[in-house]
């Protein structure tokens, strides 16, 4: 029923690291929730089911907990229903996870021969005899990546995460998505092991695409939680890039490089868990105080909510992959593993990998812009609404949750070697050579890339020197004893007011304009002009909404198609109100005819004849003449 190998244990640790601070935070958040019993019940069931997925050792238990996880998280989104948007988001989320579940179901049913209690290793044997392994791979990818939120199955994230209560968003984004990554690890290694090159390239490209799409849509958001949700897409993309590289290297029999890339992916998984949880918690704290998710209504919160501001800053630095944070280290590893591929002679790889490098580099730059926006608009400057003005620091329980999560982030930063050693054991458990000694050949100070003439980074030295130099300068500043004076910000002689600040929309303006071809934004400009002057106006209001392109072309059309079909089916079905005898007549005719044609002696001529007979009969007996 259950297994506890290193891979499972690592992910158990991940869940616990994500969940324990969250429990504190959640208890602090509880007074904010009306249906407490409902919430508590599903909250703990959710954590429990995630653990269940991780440690399950056969398909039946896995699928059971997987669905339980979807079910509870769906109910958690519905904890505080505030209008249509929550309901829509919850519905969308649930159908998407169910969609993924279908593929997982197909996958498991194929590889288990219907015997759902067999172990994963027994599945491997069955899978190896299956004629279309790529089909299995596609099922797996669709199943897990719809949960993880990779493009093009990512659309639900920016809807579902903002609507859930903040502790739940933190859990969903920080931890639940990782369960899907666990699934990738578990089943690609345990069941579908030798991978063709194409699979790795597919994962790599999906990752690159997700990373770009995620960060681009994050930039255009002004709902803080939706922004963070979009960043989850980006980070899942980054994890997948690492994962894909690992698969590619493995196919090319570069085992150590492959392990390195996988460790990078795993490391980033942990990092994303830590900082994304923290970000959602901080965002939740702000939401808790200001009662709005709209960033345009924040501002100046650093003065009243210093703890939240500090934790958010740490997480923002980490997610923007700025040295020496843990986010930086894992992205560095992923970069290094991609660059180690320069000597590989394979054209498709040579095209795919530079693209992925480019995507990752591009992502980094945009992520920084995005988090400057998120942090700056939220915490700095003057408050933009009365709600923000009255915000206070949240209660100690929530604070403790955030601080604990900050400690997790910092521990990932400080004890990188320890974590890497641990991740390394996962792959030793999967019959690979340990590469810890190659990554840290001389103590914990320098972290080496595995590739030929790869780079080296020394996270602790970087951290120490940064802190050291800054402290030194601060010390010098104290010594100088500089005279200071406090005065209002200069605003060209006008009074400094919250309204003159840059807004989140304005901040992202240039980038949005650059990517206009992608966003195709809806712009609303309302302007009260004075006496017909174009340039003189008493008030103006500008809003931009970006609807994701994928949603527009993909999901909306599917919805339209279903609507259309159901309309026709509905019309057809209503014939039976008056024409039931004719319906039975025709179904008899077609069944008997088909039995005659197919079961006795098949020939195309009779088949065509049957077709025409049926057409005529349906026309005469059911549809009838037009009046």
């Amino acid at each position, binding site marked *: 029923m259950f297994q506890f190998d290193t891979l499972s244990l690592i992910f158990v640790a991940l869940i616990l690291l994500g969940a324990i601070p969250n429990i504190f935070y959640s208890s602090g958040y509880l007074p904010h929730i009306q249906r407490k019993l409902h919430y508590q019940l599903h909250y703990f069931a959710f954590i429990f089911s995630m653990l269940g997925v991780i440690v399950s050792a056969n398909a039946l238990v896995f699928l059971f907990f997987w669905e339980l996880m979807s079910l509870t998280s769906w109910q958690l989104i519905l904890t505080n229903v505030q209008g249509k948007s929550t309901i829509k988001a919850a519905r969308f989320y649930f159908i998407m996870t169910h969609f993924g579940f279908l593929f997982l179901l197909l996958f498991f049913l194929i590889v288990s021969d219907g015997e759902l209690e067999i172990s994963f290793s027994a599945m491997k044997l069955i899978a190896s005899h299956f004629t279309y392994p790529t089909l299995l791979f596609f099922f797996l990818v669709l199943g897990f990546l719809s949960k993880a939120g990779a493009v093009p199955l990512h659309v639900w994230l920016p809807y579902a995460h903002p609507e859930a209560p903040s502790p739940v968003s933190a859990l969903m984004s920080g931890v639940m998505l990782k369960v899907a990554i666990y699934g990738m690890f578990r089943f690609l290694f345990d069941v579908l092991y030798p991978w063709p090159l194409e699979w790795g390239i597919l994962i790599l490209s999906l990752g690159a695409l997700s990373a770009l799409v995620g960060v681009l849509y994050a930039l255009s958001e002004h709902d803080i939680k939706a922004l963070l949700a979009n960043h989850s897409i980006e980070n899942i993309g980054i994890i997948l890039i690492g994962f894909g590289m690992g698969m590619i290297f493995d196919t090319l029999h570069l085992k150590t490089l492959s392990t390195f890339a996988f460790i990078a992916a795993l490391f980033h998984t942990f990092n994303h868990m830590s900082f994304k949880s923290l970000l959602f918690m901080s965002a939740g704290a702000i939401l808790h105080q200001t009662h709005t998710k709209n960033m345009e209504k924040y501002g100046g919160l650093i003065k009243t909510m210093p703890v939240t501001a500090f934790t958010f800053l740490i997480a923002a630095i980490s997610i923007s992959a700025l040295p020496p944070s843990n986010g930086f280290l894992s992205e560095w590893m992923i970069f290094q593993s991609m660059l180690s591929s320069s000597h590989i002679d394979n054209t498709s790889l040579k095209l795919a990998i530079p693209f992925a490098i480019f995507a990752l580099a591009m992502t980094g730059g945009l992520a920084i812009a995005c988090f400057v926006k998120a942090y700056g608009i939220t915490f700095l400057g003057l408050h933009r609404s009365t709600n923000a003005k009255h915000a206070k620091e949240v209660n100690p329980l929530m604070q403790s949750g955030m601080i604990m999560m900050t400690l997790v982030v910092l521990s990932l930063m400080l004890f990188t070697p320890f974590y890497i050693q641990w991740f390394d054991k996962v792959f030793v458990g999967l019959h690979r050579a340990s590469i810890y000694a190659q990554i840290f050949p001389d103590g914990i100070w320098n972290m080496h890339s595995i590739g030929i003439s790869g780079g080296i980074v020394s996270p602790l030295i970087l951290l120490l020197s940064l802190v050291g130099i800054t402290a030194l300068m601060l010390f010098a500043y104290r010594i100088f004893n500089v005279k200071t004076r406090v005065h209002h910000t200069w605003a060209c002689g006008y009074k400094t007011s919250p309204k003159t600040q840059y807004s989140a929309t304005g901040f992202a303006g240039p980038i949005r304009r650059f990517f206009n071809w992608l966003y195709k934004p809806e712009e609303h400009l309302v302007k009260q002009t004075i006496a017909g002057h174009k340039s003189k106006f008493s008030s103006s209001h500008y809003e931009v909404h970006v609807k994701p392109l994928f949603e527009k072309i993909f999901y909306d059309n599917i919805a339209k198609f279903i609507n259309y079909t159901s309309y026709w089916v509905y019309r057809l079905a209503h014939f039976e109100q*008056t*024409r039931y*005898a*004719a319906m*039975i*007549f025709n179904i*008899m*005719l077609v069944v*008997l*005819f088909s039995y*005659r044609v197919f079961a*006795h*002696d098949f020939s195309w001529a009779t088949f065509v004849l049957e077709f025409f*007979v049926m057409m005529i009969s349906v026309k*005469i*007996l059911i549809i009838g003449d037009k009046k």
Partner: protein
Amino acid sequence: MVDFLIGLFLASLIVALFTTRLYRLLLWYSMNSLMLGLLALVIGDSLDDNAMILTGVMTILIKAIGIPYILKNLSQKFHFVRQITPKIKVQYAIMLVPAILVFTFYLSEPITHMMHTHANYVAISISALFLALLLMIEHRNVAPKIIGFLSMENALFLLGITATNGMPMLVELGIFFDLLMAIVVINLLFHKEELQV
């Protein structure tokens, strides 16, 4: 003799399809049932099967006389619409009837290789089934639909008699019992108010 009676059975059913008056329809149904009963008597006689002879007698009594009589009574009591025009155009119907016959013979063609005697009887029974369905299709009123349903019953009796040389007694009695039950229910349904379906 058997073939002749079967021919008459089919003919009465086909004529019923083109009828436009309710009483005429009842008459044709009664003829149809009569043929069935006679058929049972003939086959039962030739096979020396008492059960089948009993079936034949019961068929004639219940189906050829009893049911048409009850239905006629009901129709007078509840003022049925007696002018019943088929909804399917006659032009179509005259094409459909032969088409159904051709189809059923085509359908049962493989059976002729498998069982030697009764393949055509199976075909005719199936076509009778289809024709009875057609009867139900072409009328909107309740009464002809009931006739159609009863003709279906006849069709399967035909099958039972000709193709299998009679079903077990128990089953046949059960079927009659159910038929009576059906009539009771129909009676009850009519009892409250007469309504067009």
